[in-house]
């Protein structure tokens, strides 16, 4: 099995997997505790619009998808602040419209386009060196942001009402989290694809939340778990010639199943 480390594309895949998983674990913690999972799902799907437009205009995929998904995140944030109780309507709307835009622009793009599936479900073996730089930059951005504003983000995530009373600009921080999750979704497109990314952001987080005593530990542990699932998933996908994104997600799901089963057993014994 060690021969997989000799291929450049496999090395790139492993590095990409770790970088993206760590970012997904941290940002996933932010969206889970702030109940922004569905919102992030909407942003993830709508980012396909950016991919379609990037293909049509001949821009780099990451650039097009980043601009589009950050735009979608800001739009959802503004709409949600205006009418909080219709938030899920706006999310569903942006979700579908973004994807429709992507499909139409792909149609309009001349030439052979079979890549749709790879964006939706990931194609980690096609990660280039430039992609790695972009992923590394995003992880750095996530780490710096979370460290710089750890306390207000913690306060808001635990008790938004109180945080607001203490003068913390919660709306600005919600928007910040949404922008980070939009960018995380984009870098995760290559690894697990934009449909499966939500699982990578929530499954490790869900386990980490119950094993840790502080939010900081939760984010770190969640990042480590996500990396672990990704590595195991990649190995399996290589060994049995399976799709990498789906393998990663099912490994994560199996991890969650084991965790829950173990907990039930322990609880049953004591």
């Amino acid at each position: 099995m060690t021969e997989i480390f000799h291929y450049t594309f496999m090395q790139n895949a492993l590095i990409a997997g770790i970088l993206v998983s760590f970012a997904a674990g941290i940002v996933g913690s932010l969206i889970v505790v702030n109940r922004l999972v569905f919102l992030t799902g909407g942003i993830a799907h709508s980012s396909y619009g950016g991919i379609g437009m990037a293909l049509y205009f001949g821009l780099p995929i990451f650039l097009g998808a980043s601009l589009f998904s950050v735009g979608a995140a800001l739009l959802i944030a503004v709409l949600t602040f205006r009418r909080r109780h219709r938030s899920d309507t706006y999310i569903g709307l942006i979700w579908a419209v973004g994807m429709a835009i992507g499909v139409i622009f792909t149609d309009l793009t001349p030439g052979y386009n079979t890549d749709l599936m790879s964006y939706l479900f990931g194609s980690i073996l096609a990660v280039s060196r430039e992609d790695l730089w972009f992923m590394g930059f995003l992880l750095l951005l996530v780490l710096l942001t979370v460290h710089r504003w750890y306390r207000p983000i913690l306060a808001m995530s635990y008790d938004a009402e109180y945080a607001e009373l203490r003068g913390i600009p919660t709306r600005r921080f919600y928007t910040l989290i949404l922008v980070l999750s939009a960018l995380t979704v984009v870098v995760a497109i290559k690894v697990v694809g934009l449909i499966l990314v939500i699982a990578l952001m929530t499954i490790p987080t869900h386990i980490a939340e119950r094993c840790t005593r502080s939010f900081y530990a939760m984010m770190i542990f969640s990042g480590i778990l996500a990396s672990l699932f990704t590595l195991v998933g990649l190995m399996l996908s290589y060994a049995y010639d399976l799709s990498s994104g789906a393998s990663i997600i099912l490994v994560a799901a199996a991890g969650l199943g084991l965790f829950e089963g173990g907990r039930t057993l322990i609880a049953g014994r004591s």
Partner: protein
Amino acid sequence: MKLLEVEKVSFSYDRERALEEVSFSLQEREFLAIIGPNGGGKSTLLKLIMGQYEPQEGQIRVLGKSPRQAREEIGYVPQNTHVNLEFPIRVLDVVMMGNPKRHEGQTLLERLFPIRYNEIEKRCAYSTLEKVGMQDYLDRRIGDLSGGQRQRVMIARALCAHPRLLILDEPTSSIDAEGQEQIYRLLKELSREMGVLVVSHDLSVITRYADKILYLNRRAYLHDLQANPIHLDTPEGEHFCEVEMMQMLGAQNCNCELHRDSKESS
């Protein structure tokens, strides 16, 4: 200077009047309880005092300043402490949320990346937790505490800012009778150092601990318990309903509008 001065404050939502010409004041080291039916304007009044809403008529002063300017002088304990019990957060972290002096004693690195607490901050958190008797729970997860313990932590969080006015919204709504008694004893103690304003339904407890009672039902009626004490002879743990309470207050020969109404009708 009065700690809190509410002067002829009126407030409406759309067309519905929530508060009408509400006036009362609170001195330092006074313990005021606000009672009244649901929808009587209690939450609205709290939001006004904390500067979340602006009064449409009249004015509110906290230590001579507007509520927004006086934000640092007010400590707040919300009604619902059962929020986010799954959230991995220690008692220490919750208490530190109340600390307004974010940069005190921090080095540049700590200021840029404020993950850990320095000694000054820890000491501040420890001393407020000591005040509410929770100093041994510093490292516990907040979700593992009982309702009463959690309520104490929330009070410690509010005390962390060294407020001159402590506001609590139904602090014992989800706590058993014994825990209730302990919380009110604690509040009584705290009212030796600061003004305490509590919204509550626990009448039998209030009448033993508060200095004044404000009955709020769109309009406000103030009853001074120190001048006219009320003795509710009920078995331990039983509650008076507010109607009975107001009849009791009426019997105290208080000459305000509400009591005249209730006398005429009875």
